[in-house]
C-alpha cells in the first residue's frame, strides 16, 4: 500500500500550474492595473502612480445606474428561474415515471447545448414588433399595437431567464431525485400532508441543490452582456457591457479593470446578502432537528 501512495497528489499538478498561470495571474494583473491610470490617448494603462482614483471614477452615476439595472435583472431573473424551474424539476424527479426521465433530461439539455448567442437571436426574432408573436397577440386582441418589448429591460429579462433556466432545473432535479421516495413515504406515514412533506422533508434535503442552482444562475447572469447586447438596446444596459467597452473601444484598461473588480465584488456581496435573506425567510419552515442524507446517496 505505501508503494501506491507516492505520486498521486502530483496528478493535480498540471491543473494547478495551468489555473495559476491563466486564471490567478491574469486576475492578479487586472487588480494591479485597477490602481493605475490611462496615461495618454494611445496608452492603455500605466502603473507608475498608484491610486484609488479609478474606483472613484468607476462608481460614477452612469455606472451606478447601470449597476443597479444589472442587479435588478440579476435578482429578478434568478428568482424567476427558481420559481419557474422548481415545479419542473419536482415534476421530473417525482411525478414522471423513471423510464421517461432520460428523455426529459435530454429535452431540457438540448437548448442548453445549442449556441447561446443563436438562441438569443431566436428571441430577437420572436419578440420583434413585426414578428409572429406580435401579430398573433394582435390578432387575438390581447394587445392593440405591435409588441414593443424588444430592446427594453423586459426583453433582457426574458432572455436571461431563458438562457439560464436549464442551469437551475438540472441541479434542482438532481437534488429532488436524491431525496427519494422512501423518505417522502415515511413522512406521509407519520401523518404529514403533502405540503408539509414538501416543506419539511423535500426542501431541507434538497437545499444544497437549490443553493447550487441559485449560484449557477445568478453569477453568470450578472456577468452576462451578450443577452443584453442582442435584446437590450440602450435601455437594457448591463455592467458587463460597460467593462467590455473600456477594453474594446475606450482602450482604458485601468478604468476597465477597476470596473471588473467592482463587478466581482458586487456579485459576491449581493450573493451573500441574497443568501442571508433567503436563510432568514426560510427560517420559520426549518425543523428543529437536522435532516441529512447518507454520504452515499
Amino acid at each position, binding site marked *: 500500500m505505501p*508503494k*501506491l501512495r*507516492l505520486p*498521486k*497528489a502530483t*496528478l*493535480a499538478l*498540471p*491543473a*494547478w500550474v*495551468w489555473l*495559476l498561470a*491563466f*486564471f*490567478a495571474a491574469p*486576475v492578479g*494583473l*487586472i487588480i494591479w492595473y485597477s490602481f493605475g491610470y490611462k496615461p495618454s490617448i494611445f496608452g492603455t*494603462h500605466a502603473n507608475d502612480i498608484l491610486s484609488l482614483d479609478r474606483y472613484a471614477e468607476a462608481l460614477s452615476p452612469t455606472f451606478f445606474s447601470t449597476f443597479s439595472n444589472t442587479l435588478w435583472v440579476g435578482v429578478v431573473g434568478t428568482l424567476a428561474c427558481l420559481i*419557474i*424551474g422548481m*415545479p*419542473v424539476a*419536482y*415534476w421530473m424527479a417525482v*411525478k414522471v415515471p423513471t423510464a421517461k426521465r*432520460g*428523455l*426529459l*433530461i435530454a*429535452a*431540457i439539455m*438540448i*437548448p442548453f*447545448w445549442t*449556441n*447561446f*448567442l*443563436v*438562441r438569443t*437571436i*431566436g428571441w430577437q*426574432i420572436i419578440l420583434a414588433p413585426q414578428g409572429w408573436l406580435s401579430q398573433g397577440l394582435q390578432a387575438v386582441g390581447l394587445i392593440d399595437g405591435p409588441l414593443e418589448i424588444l430592446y427594453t429591460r423586459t426583453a433582457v429579462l426574458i432572455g436571461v431567464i431563458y438562457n439560464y*433556466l*436549464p442551469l437551475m432545473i*438540472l441541479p434542482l*432535479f*438532481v437534488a429532488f*431525485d436524491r431525496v427519494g421516495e422512501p423518505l417522502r413515504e415515511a413522512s406521509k406515514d407519520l401523518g404529514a400532508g403533502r405540503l408539509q412533506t414538501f416543506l419539511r422533508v423535500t426542501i431541507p434535503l434538497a437545499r444544497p441543490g437549490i443553493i447550487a442552482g441559485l*449560484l449557477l444562475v445568478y453569477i453568470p447572469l450578472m456577468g*452576462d*452582456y*451578450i443577452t443584453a447586447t*442582442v435584446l437590450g438596446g440602450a435601455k437594457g444596459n448591463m455592467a458587463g457591457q460597460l*467593462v*467590455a467597452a473600456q*477594453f474594446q473601444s475606450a482602450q482604458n*484598461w485601468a478604468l476597465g479593470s477597476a470596473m*471588473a473588480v467592482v*463587478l466581482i465584488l458586487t456579485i459576491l456581496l449581493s450573493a451573500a446578502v441574497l443568501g442571508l435573506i433567503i436563510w432568514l425567510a426560510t427560517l420559520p419552515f426549518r425543523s428543529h432537528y437536522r435532516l441529512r442524507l447518507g454520504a452515499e446517496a
Partner: protein
Amino acid sequence: MSETATKRIALDRSSRKGAPQGTPPAARAKPRRSLSDRLFAIWGILVLLFLFAPIIVILVYSFNTGRLLIAFDGFGIEPFLTILNKPAIQNAVWVSIRSGVLSALFATAIGTLAGVAMARRPGKWVGWFLVVLVLVTVTPEIVDAVSLLPWVVFLGQDLGLTIFNDGIFRLVVGNSLFSIAVVSYIVRARLVGISESLEEASADLYAPPLRTFWRITLPLAMPAVLAGGLLSFTLSLDNTIISSFVSVSGTTPWPVYVLSAVRSGLRPEIASVSTLMLIVTLLSLVLVAWVLKRSGDSATEIARTMAGG
C-alpha cells in the same frame, strides 16, 4: 425465555414485513392522476415549449430566402447554398471546431488527472484546490475575458512567447479554464462514489501504479471522463465572451463571427449554419448517451454525471 423473546421478535418482524404488502399495492397499482399531478405536467410541458421556442424559430428561419434574417420572406434552401460561397463562415466554424476539440482534449486530460487526485488522494490540498476551482467557476466570464487579454498580450509581445500570438492557442487557453473545473468536478464526483478496493486489489496483485491507473481507475471513471469531455467541447463551441476578447483576426471562431454580425446585420445563413451545428451536436449527444448506457448507467445517473452531482 430467550427463545420466546426471539420468537416474538421474529413474529414482530414478519408481521411488520407483511403489513405493507397487504394494502398499498392495490392503491399504488392504479394510476392516480390528481389535479396537482396534471398541473405539474402542464407546467412542465409549457416550460419545455418555452425552452424550445427560439430553437424552432431558428430552424424555421434557416430556410428564409429573404435578405435579412429577422424578416421572413419565403421558404427555400438558398441560405444553405449561400454557406458554400462564404469562406468567412466556413473558416469561423472550422476554427471553432478545431479549438473546441483541442481544448476539450486538453481540459479532459488535465481535469481527469486532477479529479482522480482529489478523489483518491484526499488531504488538505483538496480544500485549497476546490477553492481555486470554485473561484474559476464563479468568476463571471467577462472578468476572465478582460483579464486574459492583457495577460496574453503581455506574454506574447512583452515576453516574446510567440505561441501566445497564435489564434487557436489563445482560444484553447480561454476555453480551457471553465472546462478544467467542470471535468475535475465530474470525475471527482464519480470516483468518490466508488470504493477504492479494486485499485487496492490491483496494487496487492503487484500491478505498478501506472498500470492500475490505466486498467482500473480510468475505466471506472470513463463515463465521467466522456461526459466531461463532451461538456467541455460544447462549452468551448459556445464560448463567446472570452473568445471575442482573445481571438486574433484571421482565427475568428463562430460565436464571435455571429456577434459581429449582430452589430452589422444578421443574414439567414447564420441560422442555417446553426441548424447544421445543432444536428451535429445532437448526433454527438446521442452517441455519448448510448456509450454511457452501454456502460450501464441509468438515465438519472447520466444526468447526474453530466450535471456534475
